[in-house]
């Protein structure tokens, strides 16, 4: 019996569709499987990449940490070197930092001279736990392993194996550096670690260079300090010599003036003495009068006016009374003159301390003229136009008096045979200028150029020291005085001294 065709066709159709569907799903499954496989492969690659990246990051981190540690060490040692720490403090700082950097148990600093340890300093061993302390046994252990007998600077850091079964120290790292004289400073670091990381040596070499430069700088600083002290001593000696020179020259001027000054003193002394002789006679007269009055009273028991007048006339009492007053006045004047001269000499010869105080130039010039009066007395005229109106300046009276005395002596010497000395002042720009003019022989350009050179003199041997004007110049410089000289041969010379006005 035949089956109907339609259901069969439908069945076939369904089977085909089913097969098609199965094929689609199978292909889909294949694609899904392949995609999953691809994804897994990709995941593996990502995982590997992440692992490698992680490893690389770990290495970079370790490298960075090491570099940071190295930089920190170098930074701190450099700061110590560049700081104002003393030599000992800087080296101690270096020991502490290096001990930590190379992970040593102990750090040492000591000094040798000709191979022998010197300066047994207390607490010269450092450890992180205990700080600075004394460790004789450890020091001996280090000394035994270092080439201390070699008295030269090592060119780098060195490591020596240590045979120490007692405390298990394995190696000592060391270097040395030159100190002053034949001394060598030594740094040593004792460690129990089995091996030394060679990577630390370039860093230690850099730190060593820095330390050496720091030591050189500090030793140089000490030298400079010593030289400064010497220089200051020299300056002080020079200052003292200058003061002595000024005083000597002052005394030399005084020597030149001595004869004149003696004459100045002699004159009043002579007339005072002469007057005193007269007073002696007058006293004799008074004694006679007294005697006569006593005799008259003894004889007559009385003295009338007539007899008294006669006795007085006999003793010339009226004249004596009148003359005595004149003589006493003259004596006082004479003694005042002596007193003034002595006073001026005292001021002149006084050792000044170069302390500048407010003073009158008028009084200073007047005193100098009094001292030198004798050199101008007979053949010269002195025209001193200075008055109290001349502004005050800051100065040392004795020293400036010396300057004017020198100028006046020179002026008198230039005016041998007579002439006129004129002194006046002008003012301007907060300065007062004292002009000292003579009508002497004058000077040529060459002489003017050498005026203030020490030991230059135009005077014959034995007359001048050649130091007068050079010393005067030094004094004027300390007073901030500017000096100019106008001179014409045969007509004379004018010195112009420009002082800053004291406000």
């Amino acid at each position, binding site marked *: 019996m035949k089956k109907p065709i339609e259901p069969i066709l439908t069945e076939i159709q369904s089977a085909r569709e089913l097969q098609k569907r199965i094929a689609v799903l199978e*292909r889909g499954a294949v694609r899904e499987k*392949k995609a999953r496989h691809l*994804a897994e492969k990709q995941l593996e690659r990502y995982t590997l990449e992440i692992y490698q990246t992680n490893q690389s990051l770990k290495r970079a981190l370790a490298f960075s940490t090491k570099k940071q540690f190295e930089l920190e060490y170098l930074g701190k040692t450099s700061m110590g070197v560049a700081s104002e720490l003393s030599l000992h403090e800087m080296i101690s700082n270096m020991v502490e930092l290096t001990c930590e950097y190379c992970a040593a148990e102990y750090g040492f600093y000591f000094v040798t001279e000709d191979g022998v340890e010197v300066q047994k300093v207390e607490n010269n061993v450092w450890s992180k736990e205990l700080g600075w302390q004394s460790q004789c046994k450890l020091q001996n252990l280090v000394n035994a392993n270092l080439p201390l007998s070699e008295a030269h600077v090592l060119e780098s850091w060195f490591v020596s194996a240590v045979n120490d079964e007692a405390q298990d120290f394995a190696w000592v790292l060391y270097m040395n550096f030159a100190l002053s004289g034949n001394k060598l400073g030594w740094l040593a670091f004792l460690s129990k670690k089995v091996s030394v990381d060679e990577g630390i040596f370039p860093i230690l070499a850099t730190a060593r260079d820095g330390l050496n430069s720091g030591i050189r700088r500090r030793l140089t600083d000490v030298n400079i300090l010593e030289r400064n002290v010497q220089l200051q001593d020299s300056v002080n000696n020079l200052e003292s010599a200058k003061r002595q020179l000024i005083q000597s020259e002052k005394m030399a001027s005084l020597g030149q003036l001595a004869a004149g000054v003696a004459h100045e003193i002699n004159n009043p002394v002579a007339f005072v003495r002469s007057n005193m002789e007269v007073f002696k006679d007058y006293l004799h007269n008074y004694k006679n009068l007294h005697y006569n009055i006593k005799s008259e009273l003894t004889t007559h028991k009385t003295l009338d006016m007539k007899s008294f007048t006669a006795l007085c006339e006999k003793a010339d009492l009226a004249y004596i009374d009148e003359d005595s007053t004149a003589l006493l006045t003259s004596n006082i004047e004479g003694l005042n003159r002596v007193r003034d001269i002595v006073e001026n000499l005292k001021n002149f010869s006084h050792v000044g301390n170069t302390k500048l105080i407010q003073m009158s130039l008028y009084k200073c010039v007047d005193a100098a003229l009094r001292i030198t009066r004798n050199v101008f007395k007979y053949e010269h005229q002195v025209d001193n136009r200075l008055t109290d109106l001349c502004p005050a300046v800051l100065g040392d009276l004795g020293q400036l008096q010396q300057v004017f005395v020198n100028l006046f002596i020179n002026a008198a010497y230039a005016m041998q045979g007579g002439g006129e000395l004129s002194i006046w002042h002008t003012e301007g720009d907060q300065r007062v200028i004292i002009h000292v003019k003579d009508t002497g022989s004058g000077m040529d350009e060459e002489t003017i150029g050498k005026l203030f050179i020490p030991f230059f003199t135009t005077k014959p041997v034995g007359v001048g020291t050649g130091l007068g004007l050079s010393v005067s110049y030094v004094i004027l410089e300390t007073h901030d005085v500017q000096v100019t000289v106008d001179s014409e041969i045969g007509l004379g010379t004018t010195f112009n001294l420009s002082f800053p006005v004291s406000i």
Partner: protein
Amino acid sequence: MKGIIFVKFNEFIEELWGDEFWDELLEEAQLPSEGAYTTVVTYDDQELFILIGLVADKQNISVKDTQFAFGKWVFKELYNIAPTRAHNIQDVFEFLYAVQDFIHVEVHKLNPYALIPKFQFLSRTNDKLSFQYLSPRKLCFFCEGMVYGLAEHLGQKIRVFQSECEYEGGQCCVLKVEKV
């Protein structure tokens, strides 16, 4: 092109025309990858263009419309994996700026070698925005579809068109978005 686009294209095709149509496309296309797509692998761009071309042929629609439809459909898929910050934006224009300012920046962080399109903004008013679409892949219609998908997601009505398009002889592709 990143595998996520191919995986999403697969889902898009299967949603519209079924897995048999997808199988048919792959059987016919004979692609180097054999259609074994996974999100973590990168595939040749050309495979997508071949598949889009086949869809257009078989469904009797233009390539432009196919790109547009896929772009509109795929927006919500990509939105879900976009940075959370993007989810706070409620305006189409703001979102397009955010695409340029940080969404693509984040994509670049995760995929340093990804070829990401650039938007060069030309003008903006309250309701009009104009920008140039710059990508060697020339998926400007796909981009148009994405903008539509964005507006639909945010509940804004817009019109998107290109005032200039490389497919129509232009120097570049300029997209104009108008709120309506």
